[in-house]
């Protein structure tokens, strides 16, 4: 049997319309999963789903703001009702607000936490209610939370983003141990990309290049290259392939782990 097959699995990928999320949707659908793409970007999300359906892959789009508890409840209900279950949740949706710690506002902090941390908490909560024994699908599952290397080490200009990703890292371990202890059959792991060639990766460079930090794009690029032994940004599909491993039964004994995909960033 092929433990990587996703043929009988239903997955929900938040922020699945663009960037890493879209690459995850590609990987999981190609492996046979039915994937529900959730995003606030309706146009891109619908287009992504249509594109996959045209290739005879199984996908659908649902509009979903991860900072809304009511929308989490209705999204999970709909996914389970329409597809007969939920086996995989990829908490990928997130935002970055860069800038100097001294310049950022409490509103910035709360906004980033409402999406990156509260969104992940709510996702795990409603997914667990559905996936655990006696829940609306009740057959266990795998939850993958997108954290970041910024949740492990410090970099200039990413204080509140990194803090939110550190919260995701720790919450992942707590959920993993709690769910395992209770026999839910739900594994929870975090994935920690280094800078990736996406719009958010561009934002990281922009913050570093700002006048208050390094002052030029060249200096920003130089710093990033110095931080990454492989001397390049990651590609979305390189993150997606790790998410596929964690989503599949090939990783049946993996829970509470933090897997980095960072070209060596955190190894030095």
């Amino acid at each position, binding site marked *: 049997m092929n433990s990587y097959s996703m043929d009988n699995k239903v997955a929900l990928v938040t922020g699945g319309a663009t960037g890493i999320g879209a690459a995850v949707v590609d990987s999981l659908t190609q492996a046979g999963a039915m994937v529900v793409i959730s995003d606030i970007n309706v146009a891109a999300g619908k287009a992504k789903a249509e594109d996959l359906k045209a290739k005879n892959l199984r996908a659908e789009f649902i509009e979903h703001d991860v900072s809304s508890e009511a929308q989490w409840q209705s999204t999970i209900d709909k996914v389970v009702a329409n597809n007969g279950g939920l086996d995989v949740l990829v908490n990928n949706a997130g935002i970055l607000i860069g800038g100097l710690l001294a310049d950022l506002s409490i509103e910035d902090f709360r906004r980033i936490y409402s999406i990156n941390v509260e969104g992940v908490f709510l996702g795990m909560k409603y997914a667990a209610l559905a996936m655990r024994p006696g829940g609306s699908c009740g057959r266990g599952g795998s939850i993958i939370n997108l954290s970041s290397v910024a949740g492990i080490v410090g970099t200039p200009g990413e204080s509140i983003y990194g803090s939110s990703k550190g919260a995701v890292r720790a919450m992942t371990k707590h959920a993993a141990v709690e769910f395992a202890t209770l026999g839910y059959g739900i594994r929870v792991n975090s994935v920690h990309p280094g800078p990736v060639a996406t719009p958010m990766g561009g934002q990281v460079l922009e913050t570093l290049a700002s006048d208050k930090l390094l002052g030029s794009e060249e200096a920003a690029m130089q710093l990033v290259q110095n931080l990454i032994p492989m001397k390049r940004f990651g590609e979305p599909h390189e993150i997606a392939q790790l998410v596929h491993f964690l989503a599949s039964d090939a990783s049946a004994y993996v829970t*509470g782990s933090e897997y980095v995909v960072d070209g060596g960033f955190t190894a030095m």
Partner: protein
Amino acid sequence: MGRVGGKVALVTGGAMGIGAATCRLLAREGAKVAVTDINSEAGEAVARDIVENGGNARFYRHDVASQDDWRRALAAVRNDFGPLDILVNNAGIVIVNTVEDATLEEWRRTQEINLESVFVGTQEAIGVMKDNGGGSIINISSVMGLVGGTIEAAYCASKGGVRMFTKSAAVYCAEQGYGIRVNSVHPGYIMTPLLTNAASTLPNAEEVVSDLISRHPLGHLGEADDIAYGILYLASDESKFVTGSELVIDGGYTAK
């Protein structure tokens, strides 16, 4: 074409446990597999079994503590299969001891098999891989390279050494532009001959094993295949941006 189709892999300690499971999985996914071990009988059997199931494998007798053996094995593999793409430094031993009762001899023996062999193997593999455009080196550490265990003092030290050596080699190879990735895998306690043999040296083996199980939140010990799948990921091109990282596969052991 499998996930490692056409690649040449060498797996040390391939005769049993995680090593044997890795040999079988890599072969099933299309690799040509050099099964190496000091246990010729069991190693031959693994290679034969792979071939009988339609895979490509061959056994080489190889003492990982011997630099000469490393050179002989790598030359033979190159001759039989072609340039090496994947090295899995899996061979290892456990001698049950505490910091108070471990002898210096046990300590040195443990470092020799578990740590020196990884240094020599990685160095020799870099030597051949860098001229072939790169490769993937996977060093099997342990959760005991991340947290302390009480009855395996020397083993813990050796596995912590493997973890840090892996990162140093990874960063070096990336900066040199060799295209060689180096990562460590950290299994929890896995049901293998290594574990059952170590436990059998204790008067209260059953109690020890049930205590071990209780330390894994998933509520059971892992199987060799659980680790082999992680090794396969690191061996394949799917992990081409992953280097210097630690793949923990431990049923939640270190998350708590």
